[in-house]
Every structure is written in structure tokens, then in C-alpha cells.
């Protein structure tokens, strides 16, 4: 076997949370890269995607590792990890942000812009509605950074580029059952809603179930976010008009690979932004029944 360049090195990969299949996909990618470079990683995040201080504790617990060579981080709050990450950089180790990132301090940032993803969803919504109608949003969190960006990107784009009215936005914690009930009560209160935008898998599958329960499938369009077996099935049969997927596996892979490259002093592809951070776009894609089996989309969808 070829010698692995960074054998024995340690990189903590700290996501916003863990209890979601999205993060499991990120973890998978990160592990692939770790395998290739021979580094050890720990993929560990707080129980809830709100627990800032726990995330800081996790970061710190991992910084004590004697084999530390780099950090990959998706910070719940950039400010909260600034000091610790600064210390890491002062030791000459790279810091790589992924997903929500970790602000200007990062040497590189591998993510999808959730704001842009929201905009992409909005473009498709406008297309589906021919530029007019009513939309309701089932969000999954009012506080998690990327969740907020997904909704904001969507709303801003809709308002700037169409006459579509956003009648209501409610949040269901990504809880399928709550999201189902939310979707139902919004539709019953506003029967003229044409489309529902759901900001993650739980919100989308929840809303999908809600529509089914009141026989509104086909009467109301649904667009969503992320991927799962249930979502794929819904998209395939057209009951979900389409959804945005990021490439979580790729994101995890690129985060760790980028960190390794930086350690090795190898070049990293990407644009450099005003903070000197190399931005590695991991992309976001619209998928629907027509394109989901295409070669550039299919690998991005996960169960």
C-alpha cells in the first residue's frame, strides 16, 4: 500500500449536531478522506444544534489531543470559538470551516451557501408557480444558522423577483409529526396556498405526510430540502415537486481533505474571499423527478 502522508495525525471534525442523517452523510465523507490521508478523526457534535457551550467544550476537549494537526468546524456561533481557533492557528495549524463554517478565521471554508440554496429553491418555486401565488414555509429552526439562511435566501429572492405572497412561516424543530401538523393547520387556515417550502428533511417529509393526510397532494405543491428515502420516493412519484440537495458526503470529504492539503502545503482549489479564506464550494442542486437519476445528482442523494 502507498504510504499515507499524514499517518497518525488527528483532526477533530465538529458539526452543529449529530442526530440527523445529513450529518451522518458528512461523517461518511470525512471518514473517506481520513482513510485516504491516514489521519484519525473524531466526528463529534452537541446533542442539540443549539448548545453553543457544549460545542465549545467538545472543541476544547479535542484540542488537548497531542497528535492534533488541524481542525474542521461548523460553528453554531462563530464568536464563541474564536479564541480557541485563534490559538490553533497560532500553533500553525489550519482551521477549515464546513457547512455553517467558522467565520473569517478559517483558512478554508467548504460549504454550500445555504442562502444561495434558499435562492435556488426560490427560483424553482417561481418557475413552478409562474411567478404568482401564495407560499407557506415550514421551517425547522429559528436559530440554527444554516436553517435561518435557507429561509432568508428563499424569502428575499421571492420578494425581490416575484409577486408571490408568503402567507405564513412556522417552525417545527425538524420534527416530522409537528411539521405535518403545522402544514395541515396552515393549509386549513389558508386554503389558497399554492406551494409549501420546507427547510429540511424533517420539515419536508412532515409536510408531505400532512398533505397526504388531508388529501392535498397534487393540489398544493411541495418543495423541500435535503434527502432521505422517503423524500426520494416522494420526489420520484412527483408528489414532492422537487428539493434542494447539498452534497454532504462531498462536503465532509472536502473539509478533511482540504485540511490535510493545507497541512501538507499542497494547493487547494477555490476562490479566496476578502478575509483570505479559500472558499471551496461543495454545491447545491435542485433535484426533481426528471433529473434525480442523472449521474451528477444521484450520488448526492442519500437515505
Amino acid at each position, binding site marked *: 500500500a502507498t504510504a499515507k502522508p499524514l499517518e497518525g495525525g488527528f483532526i477533530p471534525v465538529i458539526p452543529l449536531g*449529530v*442526530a*440527523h*442523517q445529513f*450529518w*451522518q452523510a458528512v461523517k461518511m465523507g470525512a471518514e473517506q478522506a481520513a482513510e485516504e490521508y491516514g489521519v484519525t478523526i473524531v466526528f463529534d457534535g452537541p446533542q442539540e444544534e443549539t448548545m453553543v457551550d457544549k460545542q465549545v467544550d467538545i472543541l476544547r476537549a479535542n484540542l488537548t489531543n497531542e497528535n492534533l494537526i488541524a481542525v474542521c468546524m461548523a460553528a453554531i456561533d462563530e464568536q464563541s470559538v474564536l479564541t480557541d481557533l485563534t490559538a490553533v492557528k497560532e500553533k500553525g495549524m489550519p482551521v477549515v470551516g464546513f457547512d455553517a463554517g467558522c467565520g473569517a478565521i478559517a483558512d478554508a471554508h467548504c460549504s454550500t451557501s445555504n442562502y444561495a440554496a434558499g435562492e435556488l429553491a426560490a427560483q424553482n418555486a417561481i418557475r413552478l408557480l409562474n411567478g404568482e401565488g401564495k407560499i407557506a414555509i415550514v421551517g425547522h429552526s*429559528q436559530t440554527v444558522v444554516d436553517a435561518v439562511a435557507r429561509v432568508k435566501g428563499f424569502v428575499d429572492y421571492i420578494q425581490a423577483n416575484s409577486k408571490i405572497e408568503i*402567507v*405564513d412561516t*412556522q*417552525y417545527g424543530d425538524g*420534527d*416530522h*409529526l409537528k411539521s*405535518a*401538523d*403545522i402544514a*395541515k*393547520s*396552515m393549509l*386549513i*387556515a389558508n*386554503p389558497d396556498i399554492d406551494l409549501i417550502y420546507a427547510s429540511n428533511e*424533517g420539515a419536508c*417529509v*412532515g409536510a408531505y*405526510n400532512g398533505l*397526504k*393526510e*388531508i388529501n392535498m397532494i397534487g393540489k398544493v405543491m411541495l418543495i423541500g430540502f435535503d434527502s*432521505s*428515502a*422517503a423524500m426520494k*420516493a416522494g420526489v420520484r412519484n412527483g408528489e414532492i415537486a422537487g428539493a434542494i440537495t447539498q452534497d454532504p458526503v462531498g462536503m465532509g470529504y472536502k473539509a478533511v481533505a482540504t485540511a490535510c492539503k493545507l497541512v501538507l502545503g499542497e494547493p487547494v482549489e477555490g476562490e479566496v474571499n476578502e478575509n483570505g479564506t479559500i472558499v471551496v464550494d461543495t454545491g447545491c442542486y435542485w433535484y426533481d423527478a426528471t433529473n434525480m437519476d442523472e449521474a451528477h445528482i444521484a450520488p448526492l442523494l442519500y*437515505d
Partner: protein
Amino acid sequence: MTKTNNRSATQLLIIVSVLIVMFAFFALMKPGFASYINVMTIALSTCVNGLLALGVTFVITTAGIDLSIGTTMTFSCVMSGIAFTSWGFPIGLAIAFGFLVGAACGGTSGFAVAKMKLPPFIATLAMQMMTKGLSLVVSGIKPVYFTAAPNYQKIALGGFLGIDGFYNAFVLFILGIAIAYVLYSRTLLGRYTQAIGSNEESARLSGINTTRWKMLVYMVSGLFSAFAGLIMSSRLGSAQPQLGAGYESEAIAAAVIGGTSMSGGEGSIPGTVIGAFIISVLTNGLRSMAVTTEWQTVVTGMVLAGAVYFDLLRKRGRAN
């Protein structure tokens, strides 16, 4: 006889009135709220919480608490899903296995409370953590789908007798209520549940094996959690391993709003059901009035405190 009946009848009457007033308020504010389809929506959203609340009513009546009901619900349907998808159990057996898991979790909490004498809060908090973690572990943090059992979703969502919008879930919920009611009011289990809650030491000195009955009570709670898990996973077509924590507060709130006393000894199954409906109507009503999520939380907190206070005033009024 008459005395007790009158008392609980009054109590029921009062919270039913609260429910009606609430309902009328939202119906006035928002036409469409009282529509058939919305009422069915409210009813459906009550099933899961209602079943959890029924189970926890028994536990609270013994002056205990069960914080693990939400995560046990999840764990039992995840295990049922695993049994179905990975171990090749036929669906019927897999469902039965889910109930077994629920009973085992409840039984373990019960053992910890009754035998090891752990405070119920701690024993069931520990059980909450364990079932929460184990759900994620066994599922690999992925939903477990029941898609291979095409009729699984019909269990909750099939139309009963072909009535449109009248789901099987209601029939199951009503079945759950009936079972809980009979258990609570007409069997030894219910009687001893109340006796233990009223004065455990006296019950013991009267020759009741309080340890065994308390274990059974927590097992009943576990079984109702599994029942809720069945409805939940059937509605979603999948078992979602990350859900569950937090469901206990709402269920406990329903039971207490319904007149079950946290200090034990008294409770009411119909009360719990109404309590669960009060919460659903409130949530649905606030949503349909497009109240923001954060204000919904604030209002729910105030209504919880208010409803329980109201019930206390009534009880005090009765005492004087």
C-alpha cells in the same frame, strides 16, 4: 358513590367547558378552524400525545413521574422497524415486538423505582437518556422505513369504515382510552395505583405487594408509549430515531390539566383525554392564527399554569 361521581363529573364538566370556550374562540377568530377537516386534523394530532398522556396518568397517580415516555415511544417503534426490516419479522410480529420493547423499558424504569427505590424523576430521566441514545445507535441515525409493509400507514391513516377523513388512528385512540379507563376504574391495577399514590406505606401494610404493582404501572406506561409509537410511525411510514425527547412535557401537562394530581392518589382518564385535546386545540388554533412559534411557546406556558391553577381553585372551592 354519588359523592365521588359528582365530584369528578363537575371537574370534567369544567374542563370540557374550557375546551369548548377555547374552541369557540378560535372558531370565531378564524373561520375554517371549526371545519370538519380541521377538527379531524386536531383529533389526529391529539392521538400520539393522548396515548402518552394516558400511560403517564397511571404513573402520576402513584405520585411518580415518567420522563422517558417520549423516547420510549421512539425506541419501541425503531426496534419494531429494525425487527421488520433487518431481522425479517413479519409486520404483525414486528409490531408486537415494539410493544414488548415498550413494556421492557417501562418495566425497567419500574424496577428501578419500585425495587431499587430510585426517585422516579431520576430513574426515568436515566431511561430517557438510554432510550434516546439507543434509538440512534440501533438505527444508525437514519429513519427506519416501513415501506416494505404497504399497509403499515393504513394502521393510522386508513379511513375507518370508509368515512372520509375519519382515520383508523381515532379508533385506535378510542380503544386506548377505553382500555385505560377500564384499567383505571375497574381493575385491581387502577385501584392499587390510586392506593399507592394516596399512601404507599398504608397500601403496603394492607398486604399489597406495592413493589410488583408499581413495576406494572410503569410497564403500562411503557406499553402506552409503544402504542403511541405505533401510531406515530404509521402516520409517518417510518420510525424517526431522533424524535421523542420533549414529548413527555406535553403529555404530563395534558394529564395534569385533566385533573391528575402530581402528589398522587387521584386522576381521571377522561380528564386526561380532554387535557390532551385542550393542548391540541390551543396549538392548532395559535398556528392557524399565524401566531409566531416563539409566542406560541409563551402562550402555551401561560395556559398550562392557568389551567392547572383553575383546577386547583375548583378543588379548593370544593374543600370549603
